[in-house]
């Protein structure tokens, strides 16, 4: 059986030297005591702000448990636009936000009633400008206060560097063996390499075998959310030309695995199960409607094989 041999539709074989994470730049190997300290700290620091979490990790000479590294990465992701702007800066940003809103309103108005509506929208909006900006600033302040407990300290990193830093923490967690972090690393790896520059080709070429290796590793661990990533890869044509049939196979297999719950060999993290399938069901139905009967039958066999695949 192809799947048992590690042959997945559309996914290249793992190469011999594929790794699931980059070698850490930090050559330090931690002592058992340091790791115990890290473990003790782990339960408490996830409640702290970004700054507190990073400070604790620093105090532990960089020793960090995988779930803390994931949490720090997630926190940066969550707080990528967090800002501790002064009131003056907020006023300036509010005026800009008002202009942006006005332009958007004009576009909507033009869609609904071309010609006359844009001017009317602008005139009406300008009457309420000051009020709108004041409310916008109030919202920002409230939001900042709410987020401060989680995002405090994020401003030490420039906004454009936060996603890259988040990726670094996931990569670190992935290297420590955390499955969720590995899945996140796989999902962000190519994006993080900035594929919109042709000069990134070298980095992409180096990443490819590592990503493929990590995907195989998660498949062999039967970590179900990776099937969604495979569906996305198939839709985008990451390893081979885009293939709706294979996208359907992976998406449909995930749908059935999640619907079966914790029965069977596949790991389905509870908190992610529903989130993973948001929007997927609709997409699967659309793809299914386009598959010719023969392809549909073949795809169905693959889906059954994936769902019933025994544990490693």
């Amino acid at each position, binding site marked *: 059986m192809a799947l048992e041999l590690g042959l997945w539709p559309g996914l290249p074989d793992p190469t011999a030297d594929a790794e699931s994470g980059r070698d850490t730049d930090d050559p330090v190997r931690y002592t058992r005591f340091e790791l115990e300290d890290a473990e003790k700290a782990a339960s408490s620091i996830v409640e702290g702000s970004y700054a507190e979490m990073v400070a604790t990790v620093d105090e532990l000479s960089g020793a960090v448990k995988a779930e803390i590294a994931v949490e720090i990465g997630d926190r940066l992701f969550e707080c990528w636009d967090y800002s501790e702007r002064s009131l003056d800066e907020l006023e300036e940003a509010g005026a800009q936000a008002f202009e942006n809103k006005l332009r958007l309103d004009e576009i*909507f108005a033009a*869609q*609904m*009633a*071309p010609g006359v509506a844009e001017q009317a929208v602008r005139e009406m909006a300008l009457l309420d400008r000051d009020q709108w900006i004041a409310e916008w600033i109030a919202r920002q302040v409230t939001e900042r206060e709410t987020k401060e407990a989680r995002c405090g300290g994020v401003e030490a990193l420039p906004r454009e560097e936060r996603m890259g830093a988040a990726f670094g923490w996931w990569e670190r967690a992935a290297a420590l063996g955390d499955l969720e972090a590995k899945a996140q690393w796989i999902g962000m790896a*190519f*994006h993080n390499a*900035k*594929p*919109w*520059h*042709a*000069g*990134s*080709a*070298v*980095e*992409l*070429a180096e*990443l*490819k075998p590592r990503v493929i290796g990590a995907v195989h590793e998660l498949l062999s661990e039967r970590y179900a959310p990776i099937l969604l990533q495979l569906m996305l890869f198939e839709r*985008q*044509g*990451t*390893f*081979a*030309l*885009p293939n709706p049939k294979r996208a359907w196979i992976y998406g449909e297999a995930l749908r059935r695995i999640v619907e079966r719950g914790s029965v069977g060999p596949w790991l389905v993290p509870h908190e992610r199960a529903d989130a993973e399938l948001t929007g997927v069901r609709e997409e699967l139905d*659309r793809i299914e409607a386009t598959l010719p009967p023969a392809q549909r039958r073949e795809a169905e066999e693959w889906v059954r094989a994936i769902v019933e695949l025994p544990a490693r």
Partner: protein
Amino acid sequence: MGSGHCRIAGKMTWSTRRRWFTSGVLLLAASAGLGWMLFEQAHVQRAHPVTSAGQVSGVSASARSGESTVGDESELNDVRRPVGPNVVTRVDETAVWNLPEDERAPFLASLRSLAEAGWSEAFLALAPVASRCILRTPPTDALIIRLYNPDDGLSYRHLRVEDESPSDRAAMREERMARMEREREQAMRKRERCDNALGDDPDEYMQWLEQALIQQPPGFFVAMLDDLRMVPTETGWMVRNAERLARFNLGFLNALRARVVAGDPKVVGRAWKAFAGRQFMPEPDPVQAWAHGLVARRLPEPWSEPAPTDADYQRLVEAGLDPEDIGRAREMSETLWRRCCATSIPVEQP
């Protein structure tokens, strides 16, 4: 697949083209057979296949980039594979790849056939369209209906008006229907264009790029340096072709350096661009960029026109060019100038 043009055999005249535009596909289909008998055979003749990877063809080596050769048969027969008879190669004595960009649309299928057969000039003319088709796949009808159908199109879900009158609603619906039709027509035209320019295998574009690097047709370096569309940067395409593209980038930079040292002024004037950004390199090399920029500035008009401006210089400083680097760049530029241009380019020394 493809437009009616790829059925036309032989040489087309301007009057033929006008007739095509006005009388449509039926007339064309009827005249195709007659055309084959009346017009000359396609000007693309049997040729040897491309065999020498990494070597510049005799044609291209002799041609200075940017100097367009208008389909000289003796030159074109050197290294290309034969193409079928149903390919338009010339329009009123002008090679089809030398037509202005806005007049190439009816000949995209022919340009693709020529590119597939190893005619890199055709690829250069095709690339601006084909690479865009990779970057943004034309939407399907199903997607357009999901986005723009007047009743619950995704584009309108955020638009809710509480107190609209029935007549407002009717007018709005009509406007939305018209918009959906416009979008569908546009998408259909784009699908046809992409089908002609690219076919169903976008990865073939990578092969055309490699082929062009081997052949270095006139205008290759200029197009690669001036037009960001030449290399598609769609994530899927980039990842699938990453290894080949990485090799291509390396090969391109080597070939570029060779062309600079050979003193091709059009290339010397803009080579700095290759080192200033991440178009061919993982990271910019501001020292190399500035060294090449200084050489470009010493060229006479019009070759110095693409030389870096003060704003470009500012960007290089921001990319990491410090005073010490500027000194190094100046020394490098002197060496480069002596090698590439001091004797071969007629210009007064500054």
